[in-house]
C-alpha cells in the first residue's frame, strides 16, 4: 500500500510525508490564520468519534441499572468511576459541569489519539479511492482540534474565575501575586511585575494544553510515517534481495514496537489533558 501510494506520486520520502501532512480542506489557506478555510477531515473524524463516544455511553446510561451490571455497563462504569475519582481528588467545590467535562475530554481525546493506531496509509488510501486527495485521520494532529479543546477550557476558567471571585478578585490574582508586600508603594511597583508573570502563566495554560497534545500525537504520527517510508517505493521485486527482506522485517518490528509504546502515549495524553483541565478549573474555583 505504501509502495503504491508513493509510486503514484513517483516521489521520495519527503513528498510522501508532506502529502500525509496535508488536510482535506475546502481551499488553500493564506497565512497562519484564515477563517475561510475548513478541514473537512478533522471535523468529520472528530464528529464520528464524538458520536461513537456519545452513543456508546448514552446507550449504557439509558439502561443503567443499579443491580448487577452487564459487561458493557461495567466497562463504562470503570471509566466513569476513574474520572469521578480524579475529579473528587482534585476538585473540592460543587459543580455539575466539571465531571462530565472531564469524562468527555478523556474519552474524546483518547478516541482522537486512537486513530493514530490505525495504519497510517489505510484510511488515506481508501479516501483516495473515494476521490479525496488528502485525508488526515487523527484529529489531535490538527492544531485546530487541540486548540478548540483548550480554548473552550480556557473560556470556562475565565468564566468560573469571574463567577467565584468576582471581577476584583480575578484582577487582584493577576496583580497581587506572587510578590506581595505590606508597603503600599512597594506593592504598586510590584504590580506590573506580577501582572506580567501572572498573565504569562495564565495564557500559557491553554497554549501548553493544546501544544502538548498536538506535539505528542504529531510526533507519534511522524514516527509511523517514517517507519512506513522505510520500504517506500520498493516493489515485491526488492524481496529478492537480503536488504529488501531486512527492510521489511525492520519496518514490521519497529512499527509494532512503536504501536505498543504508543498505546501508553495516547492514554497518557488524554489523561494529562483531563487532569490539567480539572486542576485549572479547581484553581479557578478556589480563593487564594
Amino acid at each position: 500500500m505504501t509502495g503504491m501510494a508513493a509510486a503514484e506520486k513517483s516521489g521520495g520520502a519527503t513528498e510522501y510525508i508532506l502529502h500525509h501532512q496535508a488536510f482535506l480542506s475546502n481551499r488553500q489557506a493564506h497565512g497562519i490564520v484564515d477563517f475561510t478555510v475548513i478541514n473537512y477531515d478533522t471535523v468529520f473524524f472528530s464528529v464520528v468519534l464524538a458520536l461513537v463516544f456519545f452513543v456508546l455511553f448514552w446507550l449504557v446510561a439509558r439502561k443503567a441499572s443499579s443491580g448487577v451490571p452487564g459487561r458493557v455497563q461495567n466497562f463504562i462504569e470503570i471509566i466513569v468511576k476513574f474520572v469521578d475519582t480524579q475529579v473528587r481528588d482534585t476538585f473540592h467545590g460543587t459543580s455539575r459541569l466539571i465531571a462530565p467535562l472531564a469524562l468527555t475530554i478523556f474519552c474524546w481525546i483518547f478516541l482522537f489519539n486512537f486513530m493514530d493506531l490505525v495504519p497510517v496509509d489505510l484510511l488515506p488510501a481508501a479516501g483516495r479511492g473515494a476521490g479525496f486527495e488528502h485525508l488526515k485521520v487523527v484529529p489531535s494532529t490538527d492544531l485546530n482540534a487541540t486548540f478548540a479543546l483548550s480554548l473552550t477550557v480556557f473560556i470556562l476558567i475565565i468564566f468560573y474565575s469571574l463567577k467565584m471571585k468576582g471581577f476584583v478578585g480575578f484582577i487582584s490574582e493577576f496583580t497581587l501575586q506572587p510578590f506581595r508586600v505590606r508597603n503600599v508603594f512597594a506593592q504598586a511597583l510590584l504590580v506590573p511585575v506580577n501582572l506580567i508573570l501572572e498573565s504569562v502563566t495564565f495564557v500559557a495554560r491553554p497554549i501548553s494544553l493544546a501544544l502538548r497534545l498536538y506535539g505528542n500525537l504529531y510526533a507519534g504520527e511522524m514516527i509511523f510515517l517514517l517507519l512506513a517510508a522505510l520500504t517506500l517505493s520498493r516493489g515485491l521485486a526488492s524481496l529478492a534481495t537480503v536488504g529488501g527482506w531486512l527492510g521489511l522485517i525492520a519496518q514490521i518490528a519497529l512499527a509494532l514496537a512503536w504501536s505498543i509504546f504508543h498505546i501508553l502515549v495516547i492514554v497518557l495524553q488524554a489523561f494529562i489533558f483531563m487532569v490539567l483541565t480539572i486542576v485549572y478549573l479547581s484553581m479557578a474555583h478556589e480563593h487564594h
Partner: protein
Amino acid sequence: MNINLTLIVQMIVFALLVFGTMRWIWPHILDAMEERERKIAQGLAAAEKGEQELTEARGKAEAIVREARERANQIIEHAQHLANDLVEQAKGAASSEAARIVAGAQQQIQLDTTRAKDSLRREVAGIAVGAASKLLGREIDARTHADLLDQLAAQV
C-alpha cells in the same frame, strides 16, 4: 498548518458534546452507581445485623436449653423421690397386707384343723359306735375281734 474555521466548528462540537454528556450520560450512570453503592452498603449492614441477631438468638437458645435441662433434671429428681416414696408406701402396704393374709391364712388353717379334728372325732365316734354295735350284734371271736380292731385302728 494553520488556524482556521475548523477551530470554531470543533469548539461548537465540543460544547455540544459536553452538554450532551452532562445532560444525558453522566447523571444516569453516576446515579445507578451510587444507588448500587447504597444497596450494597444496606446489604452489608443487614448481613451484619443478621449475624448479630443470630448470635443473640443462639445465646438465647442456649439459655433456654440450659434452663430446660435444669428443669428436666429437677423433674426427674422429683419423680424419683416420688417413685421412691411410692415404692416405700407400696412396700409397707404389701408387707402389712402380707402379714394380714398370713394371719388370715393361719386363722383359717387353725379353723380348718379344728374343724377336721372335730369331724374326725365325730367319725371316730361314729365308727366306734358302729364297731361297738357290730361287736354287740355278733358272737365274740378273738380272731374276728382282732380284725375289727385292726380295721378301726386303720380308719382312725
